[in-house]
């Protein structure tokens, strides 16, 4: 255990992993429309936060909030993505998919469009295409052709149509399907394949690193050629050939209960019920708030898995997350933002 906020020591221990500190938290007291935040996305000089009382935008040190009165499909905003092509913001809500473009909102619902279901857990933009993971299947909207396609258990290898996450990269789409593991869709061949838990065991992982840790998946994210999978029972790394499985008991992962994950470059961020874990395949760094004060811990594990020689080192810091139940995350070269069940936090990247 190291003394409070010794960032030089933390940086030294972290190697090439980014380290975040000097956390600042925001709640309704600072202008957020609600304390419960589901998702966060950094968009240039502004930050977009989805809460259960609308969309909050942080820009120039101020929060501006948008609700259904402004045209949002629903005040429960569960997912956000920004189209790199157009700059349009796509918002997955509990009442449809809202496109926020040039200051105007337009909402696709299951009644007014070909969208599969109004409960949108995840949304991503892949060039001109928008993909959503919904309670009624995955949906693909081709903005050029104005055409929706729905993928569910009848036309895709899903166990049921409930989908939780979606990501894109290198000509493929991956869908985190409840009970169906990970569904991979090749955008060129338009063929599916699925990755399910090989041991088919709900409560335990019989053979290590044999595939997806569990058929109930909660998030997928792809970057730098690696697919990262989040579940309520551990997480996975897949390089296209080999699967690796990580649990809280055998790695630096804070908890097996993972709500969401996001990969940015070589680093993946896992949103758990016990804090935030980050990992680049070699080193784990986790952030956890203390129970009795606003300070917290930075936990560093210099190895993918715990062994007799690889241990976790804990560092105390003065500032930490606003809450350990983390639901969303986004990061860039300068900062990290997390959405939690009680507030939003911004961490500064320690250089």
């Amino acid at each position, binding site marked *: 255990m190291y003394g409070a906020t010794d960032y030089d020591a933390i940086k030294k221990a972290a190697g090439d992993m980014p380290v975040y500190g000097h956390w600042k938290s925001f709640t309704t007291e600072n202008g957020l429309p609600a304390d419960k935040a589901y998702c966060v996305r950094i968009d240039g000089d502004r930050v977009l936060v989805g809460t259960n009382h609308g969309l909050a935008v942080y820009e120039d040190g101020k929060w501006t909030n948008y609700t259904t009165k402004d045209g949002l499909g629903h005040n429960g905003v569960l997912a956000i993505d920004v189209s790199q092509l157009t700059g349009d913001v796509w918002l997955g809500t509990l009442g449809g998919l809202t496109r926020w473009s040039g200051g105007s909102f337009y909402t696709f619902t299951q009644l007014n469009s070909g969208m599969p279901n109004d409960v949108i857990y995840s949304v991503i933009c892949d060039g001109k295409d928008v993909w959503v993971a919904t309670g009624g299947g995955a949906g693909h909207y081709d903005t*050029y052709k*104005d055409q929706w396609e729905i993928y569910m258990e009848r036309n895709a290898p899903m166990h049921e149509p409930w989908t939780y996450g979606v990501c894109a990269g290198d000509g493929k789409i991956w869908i985190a399907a409840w009970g169906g593991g990970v569904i991979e869709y090749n955008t060129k061949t338009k063929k599916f394949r699925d990755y399910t838990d090989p041991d088919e065991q709900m409560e335990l992982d019989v053979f290590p690193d044999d595939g997806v840790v569990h058929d109930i998946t909660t998030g997928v994210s792809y970057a730098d050629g690696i697919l990262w999978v989040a579940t309520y029972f551990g997480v996975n790394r897949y390089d296209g050939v080999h699967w690796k499985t990580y649990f809280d008991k055998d790695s630096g992962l804070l908890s097996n209960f993972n709500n969401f994950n996001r990969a940015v470059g070589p680093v993946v961020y896992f949103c758990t019920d016990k804090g935030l874990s980050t990992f680049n395949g070699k080193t784990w760094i986790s952030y956890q708030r203390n129970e009795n004060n606003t300070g917290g811990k930075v936990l560093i594990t210099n190895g993918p898995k715990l062994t007799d020689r690889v241990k976790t080192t804990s560092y105390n810091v003065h500032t930490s997350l606003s809450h350990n139940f983390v639901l969303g995350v986004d990061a860039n070269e300068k900062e990290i933002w997390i959405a939690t069940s009680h507030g939003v936090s911004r961490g500064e990247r320690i250089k």
Partner: protein
Amino acid sequence: MMKKKKIIWVVVVLVVAGLLFIPFHRFAREHVNYMTATTDHPLKCTSCHLHMADRGPVYDLVNKTYISPYNLAVSPDGSRLYVVGQEANVLLVVDVADGKVIDKIPVGKRPHTVVVTQDGKNAYVSNQWDDNVYHIDLTTLRITDTLPTGNGPAGMVLSKDGKYLYVVDSYSNEVSIFDLITGQEKRRLLAGVNPTGAAISPSGKWIYVTSRRVLPRPYRQPLSTEVTVIDAVHQRVKERKKIRDAYLMENAAFTPQGDLALITLTRPKNLIPSIQVEEGFMMTHGFGVLLPDGRIIQLLTDEPNAYYSNPFDVVISRDGKKAFISSAAVDMIQVIDLDSVRALIARSTPEELQLYANHRGISNRYVIRRIPVGSDPQGMIISPDGKYLYVTEKLDDKVAIINVNTLLKEGQIDLGGPRKITMARKGRRIFNHAGGTFQNQYSCYTCHPDANEDGLIYNMAGVGMGRNVTNTMSLYNIGKTRPYKWNGHNQSVYKQDGYRFSTYLTRTEPFNYDDLDALVAYIITGIHNPPNLRYNPDGELTAAQKRGEKIFFRTHTKDGREIPLKDRCYTCHPPPYFTNRQLEDVGTLAETDDSIPFDTPDLADLFLGAPYMHDGRAATLEEIWTKYGSEDRHGIVSDMTKDELNDMVEFLKSIRDPRYYTRDYSEEYKPLLEHIKIYDPPIVEHKKQH
């Protein structure tokens, strides 16, 4: 003997002719009376039987291909004009000094706009019905490249550095941005609904894109239409300006100083009954002023008892002191004194400025001249030296030359179109001109832009105020789909556009019979649909559309129950026009509707946009069933899953005008369709079966 025989023959012929003449004349009279819904329309067989052929040798014999100049550009040295011939599919190169056409470059279908690069060496022409832009080398006058665009490329603008071309995709509601170095489309941005015009600010930072159709809104609520503001530096949509209570915003222009941007607009009062036409309050016309501080001011160019309808283009003089607006439906160029506009805005309170949007008594404060020009003035351009304004006279095949200083029309360039004015061409002039409406308030074209529909819902106030509100119907394929009106009461276009039309719509004298003949000839023969390139570019259906087609032609529910013939999609909507022309009740009557069945609409123009149903209450095709058709009266849909409904909608969007089809539905679905009765409208009243 021979003489006697001749006399007998003559007598026989006369007697036979006399005997035949009486019943024939009687039949002809009944026929014409029925078709025109009058008793005194002249018995002129050629009116219909020669001029109503919409294709084939007779059509070719009586019709001509006109140039129909639409938009134009000028070379940087002012020596040449480049004129888009919309109907002839050409780009005309005009020598300004000689006033002669020196070259005709064939371009794509339905060219819309031409822009010329700053060095004068290259031109780009948008081909609205080919979904591409031609790059033309002006030194060789040859097409050197084709840039595929979104659907319906229309207005265009070059970035200030000349590196990017912004193309407004009018049917797919987008703006395509091309990198002119690579020739590749870099990105597409979402625009308003049916965008057409584009203008760039003097700084090059902002591009304004105007739209014609209104934005989606709650049913029967006030309308607004979008001006899309693009940040040309970051190539992102910065703002969507909602222009309240206005639509048909065809074009925009910035002053050289950048202190004002002007847009053309029309203000429809579609939520009030059409009786208001006589009160002078149904359609007003003018322009919007968009200020850098975000304010939007609307000013009318109309007067208390005179309207200047269908403003199309707007250009501004080099000194920023005058704006010119082509008022297409009254054959006028209106000249706006911009200093007066600036002063009016500066000294008026916000409340006063809001009032001016409906004020027809103040246009004399800023409209300083109205210059008569030829038929249907459209695109305009000012010469590089700022001395002349060139205006296309679309339905005259000419370009007017106006002196910017004297404000006089000094000449005309004849583009060499056919000399003969055909019946359909005359009808098109009537269609586009507001002369048949009370105080020139609007033309047929106003509610039927491009002969389609304007997307608005009107209360024609025939029987009762506020009752029987109706969604404007497209005129595409109208010759093949009678009867007309949502109630099917009009058996012909003659009746539709005859004296009843004047009673409910134009609120003035009906068209005289010669004009009516011409108008009907145009409506029946001269209107052509755009191809459905977005949803069905080549006639090959996508996998989803094929699945949807199977659903459309299905005879059994998913659990094997036979669907009664009356409840099958194809029964009421059989190809090729996807209407059986019969009246049906599909459970869509509103409380404010009379208890009547509705004329089954054809489906060939669904792809062009919302709203749908007789009163326009469905904002999307999906809503026809998800919100308003769940009782299985408008087809059997309750056994369908969401993805199956999607497939059917995809098929509906794929439907095209039959003249673009290569498929023979009647052969493909022969066993199904041979039992379907398509209503064959009677030609005289006593044979009426309907």
